């Protein structure tokens, strides 16, 4: 089917509004003439990429022009469901504002003057500039950052081959702290079995708006089928607060007081699991000693949650234990004391002994572990491509200035340290920045400082689908193919049993875009580092993964998602019994019918470390979990907090047509009492300002927010006109958040003090 541009866009059901505005922007689909759409198959099972959950999807091309995206029904915990963002994939695919040709900056940085260039020209320019910087300042003066997920591995491989240790994911701007806290205590990441829980305590982990499909479904299943009780502590009346049995509008930044106080009651009232603690826990006495002082009455004064309620909730939690959990959250940027908060939340879980129990926390059972228990090859293990002779990097990372960040170095790093290094040569000067599908202008704090940092760079490369706010300040923008046009490697999606899935093309590439794995490989070649990229195609990489088993690869591709065996929770006898019934050579169970004796922790003590000497060495004074007062705002200011909405993903989707159509503005939530004092009514134009910046927005007067707090959904208010549907609409949160590097975790801070006035 051959279509010209006009009928192509019309056929795709794309809106023509906004076309005129951007028709002059080179490199976009609107400026691209001849085009045809070729479906790869009638129905393709693949992986979504509209947020970082990456749900298994199933996509069909309808009437040769429309792509319908549903969930892959084979992935049981995902239930064949897909959220609004996932369903909107094809609206991104055909967006006339999407970038489909490499661009080179021709005006001043950030001025918006671009020229289309060919890929080989882009590669040549990049190789010349990056090698030049490497010669002059050393390879370490180039930072590489990427959204974590499929792309970051390839980019970081390039960074390593190039010789720079400075690689960053977005971890320190969102989920990092809960991961580091788990690693410090359990010796590795844990997952939550929400679906099996009878009692759930939630600290603003808004799973009904920040949708993570299997967890969202799990929570709903627990609430409906399991009749679980849900208690939510959150300053805003979110959807999860609405669906809770009880919502506490907790004072921002004080969650830790409730968490520690719950631990206090569990220990003080002798409600904790003695056997579990004795068998698996180190550092209990130090912790118990510390939490003695954290009574519910103490907590009430800090967080404004009634002491009697905290006490009752702790008792209810213990009564439901071990089939109960305290949700450790996802976005971990409430206060600089995230490390303490997330550890305190895990501590409550440790005390009720819910590890590897139904409705509790558990370790992912990847093929290797699972097969050991099964006594045979229940699930295939994946091979890894080895590359010989990768250079040894002697330069230190820019965030390696302080031992307390030791846990972050190999796990995403302190993203914000790029700004300090670029602007203050701390600890040394950065001169180049390669960014892949990461939008620090939206997701990092202090937008103005990000702009400054980019301006002082000698060379910036961005790989993205749109001219994102960050890409607008690049020297070269490389258009990546959307996830609907990419083949990628096989990913491990193991949960209670091993699972794999794979991303596959649904349609043939539109325009002149490339998948990022190929882009970084080709840049590797241009830089003269070809020998570190021995794979040629994605298929060859996939075959390395399946250890040349073409049949297995075909099967994973056909089904899109495959899980093996039955769910296994090591301390849940009924699960172990079913596991043994499924696998004839399975490990012999302990006397109590569980695999409890097999539970191991990769911590220095080999136990769960409620208090840790390792952390004490890294960050003196922090071995034991402790409350520290934080100042998040001045007395005359309001707390400014943000959150997620179900139809957008933080820094990425606000320009996608369907989604922009659903929501393209973020009104600022303000309590009627507060608004009344200021004479503000819903719909009034207001000004939010503080030392970091100033933003103009529209007020939404609602009782769904504390009187001392204002709220806005994140990711709106783009400041570059290339994102025509998002430009200037709503409040840009990053422009009001201060630049902070939190202790131990290196997290940024998303709670700020702001003044509000009628504009």
């Amino acid at each position, binding site marked *: 089917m051959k279509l010209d541009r006009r009928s192509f866009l019309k056929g795709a059901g794309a809106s023509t509004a906004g076309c005129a505005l951007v028709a002059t922007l080179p490199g976009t689909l609107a400026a691209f003439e001849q085009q045809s759409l070729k479906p790869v198959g009638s129905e393709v099972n693949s992986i979504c990429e509209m947020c970082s959950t990456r749900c298994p999807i199933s996509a069909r091309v309808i009437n040769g022009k429309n792509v*319908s995206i549903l969930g892959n029904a084979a992935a049981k915990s995902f239930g064949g469901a897909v959220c609004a963002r996932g369903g909107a994939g094809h609206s991104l695919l055909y967006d006339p504002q999407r970038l489909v040709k490499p661009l080179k900056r021709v005006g001043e940085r950030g001025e918006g003057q671009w020229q289309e260039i060919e890929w080989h020209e882009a590669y040549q320019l990049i190789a010349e500039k990056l090698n030049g910087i490497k010669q002059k300042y050393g390879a370490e003066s180039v930072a590489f950052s990427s959204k974590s997920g499929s792309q970051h591995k390839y980019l970081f491989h390039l960074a390593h081959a190039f010789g720079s240790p400075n690689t960053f994911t977005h971890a320190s701007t969102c989920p990092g702290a809960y991961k580091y806290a788990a690693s410090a205590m359990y010796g590795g990441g844990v997952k939550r079995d929400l679906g099996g829980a009878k009692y759930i305590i939630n600290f603003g982990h808004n799973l009904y708006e920040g949708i993570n499909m299997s967890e969202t479904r799990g929570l*709903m299943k627990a609430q409906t089928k399991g009749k679980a009780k849900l208690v939510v502590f959150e300053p805003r*009346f979110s959807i999860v607060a609405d*669906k809770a049995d009880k919502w506490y509008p907790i004072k921002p930044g004080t969650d830790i007081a409730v968490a520690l106080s719950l631990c206090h009651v569990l220990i003080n009232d002798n409600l904790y699991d003695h056997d579990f603690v004795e068998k698996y826990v180190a550092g209990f006495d130090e912790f118990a000693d510390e939490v003695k002082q954290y009574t519910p009455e103490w907590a009430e004064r800090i967080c404004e949650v009634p002491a009697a309620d905290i006490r009752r909730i702790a008792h209810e939690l213990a009564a439901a234990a071990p089939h109960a959990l305290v949700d450790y959250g996802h976005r971990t940027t409430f206060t600089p004391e995230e490390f303490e908060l997330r550890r305190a939340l895990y501590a409550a879980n440790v005390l009720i002994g819910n590890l590897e129990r139904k409705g509790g926390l558990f370790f992912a059972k990847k093929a290797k572990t699972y097969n050991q228990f099964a006594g045979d090859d229940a699930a295939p293990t994946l091979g890894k491509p080895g590359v010989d002779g990768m250079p040894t990097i002697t330069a230190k990372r820019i965030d390696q200035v302080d031992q307390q960040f030791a846990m972050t170095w190999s796990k995403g790093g302190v993203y914000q340290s790029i700004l300090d290094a670029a602007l203050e040569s701390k600890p040394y000067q950065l001169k180049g920045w390669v960014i892949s599908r990461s939008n620090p202008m939206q997701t990092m704090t202090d937008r103005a400082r990000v702009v400054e940092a980019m301006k002082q760079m000698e060379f910036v490369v961005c790989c993205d689908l749109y001219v994102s706010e960050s890409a607008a300040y690049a020297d070269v923008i490389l258009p990546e193919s959307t996830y609907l046009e990419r083949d990628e490697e096989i990913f491990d999606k193991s949960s209670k049993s091993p699972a794999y899935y794979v991303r596959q093309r649904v349609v043939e590439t539109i325009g002149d875009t490339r998948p990022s794995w190929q882009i970084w490989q080709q840049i590797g070649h241009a830089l003269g580092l070809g020998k570190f990229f021995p794979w040629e195609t994605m298929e060859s990489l996939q075959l390395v993964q399946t250890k040349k088993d073409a049949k297995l690869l075909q099967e994973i591709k056909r089904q899109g998602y495959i899980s093996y065996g039955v769910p296994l929770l090591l301390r849940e006898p009924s699960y172990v019994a079913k596991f043994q019934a499924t696998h004839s050579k399975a490990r012999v169970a302990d006397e109590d019918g569980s695999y409890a004796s097999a539970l191991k922790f990769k911590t220095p003590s080999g136990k769960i470390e409620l208090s840790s000497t390792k952390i004490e060495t890294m960050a003196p004074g922090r071995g034991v979990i402790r409350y520290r007062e934080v100042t998040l705002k001045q007395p005359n200011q309001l707390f400014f907090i943000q959150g997620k909405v179900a139809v957008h993903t933080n820094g990425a989707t606000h320009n996608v047509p369907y989604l922009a159509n659903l929501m393209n503005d973020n009104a600022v939530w303000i309590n009627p009492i507060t608004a009344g004092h200021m004479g503000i009514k819903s719909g009034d134009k207001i000004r939010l300002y503080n030392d970091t910046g100033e933003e103009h927005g529209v007020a939404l007067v609602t009782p769904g927010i504390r009187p001392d707090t204002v709220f806005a959904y994140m990711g709106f208010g783009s400041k570059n006109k290339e994102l025509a549907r998002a430009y200037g609409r709503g409040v840009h949160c990053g422009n009001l958040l201060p630049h902070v590097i939190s202790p131990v975790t290196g997290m940024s801070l998303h709670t700020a003090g702001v003044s509000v006035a009628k504009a």
Partner: protein
Amino acid sequence: MTKRYVMVHDENKCIGCQACNVACRSENSTPDAVTRIQVRIEGPHGHYPDLHFKYHRVSCQQCENAPCVEVCPTGAAYVGDDGIISINKDKCVGCQYCIAACPYKVRFINPETRVPDKCDFCKHSRLAEGKQPACVSVCPTDALTFGDANDPSSDVAQLLDTRIHFQDKAHLGTKPRVYRIPGKRGGINQ
């Protein structure tokens, strides 16, 4: 009438995520400017901190006594033998009486076909292929149930037999085939 297709929307389970809205668009090629289905999150109602939201599905109710069919001068708006209200493009003269008559304000002119359009339970897209409506298939929380209420063993029949439910603007006598299970303050009640 052999079948009686109905939809049940459980407002307890609905999270207002709009997955149904988006899936319906791509499945039925709905142009950006118009919408067959939307779920409005209304509120919060009440007084801080005793609040609640309402989750209100706005889509064709597939009325048993359908005003849109009654006023249609050409028979373009018609009831199928499955109870689903459809539109015959060829018979439509564009008088827009049906749009004016619909008390639920869910009919619109499709800017591409120039003919009135609305939810038809995916009759011509997915039902024809033996699949569930798009909105039902994608709903993350299984808030939607669709099926033949004439079949006593169907999920919808069981829900309607066992759960308190209501219909929008029941006093108008339109007898909607979209049923709602009301949300209850203070958690989810199955």
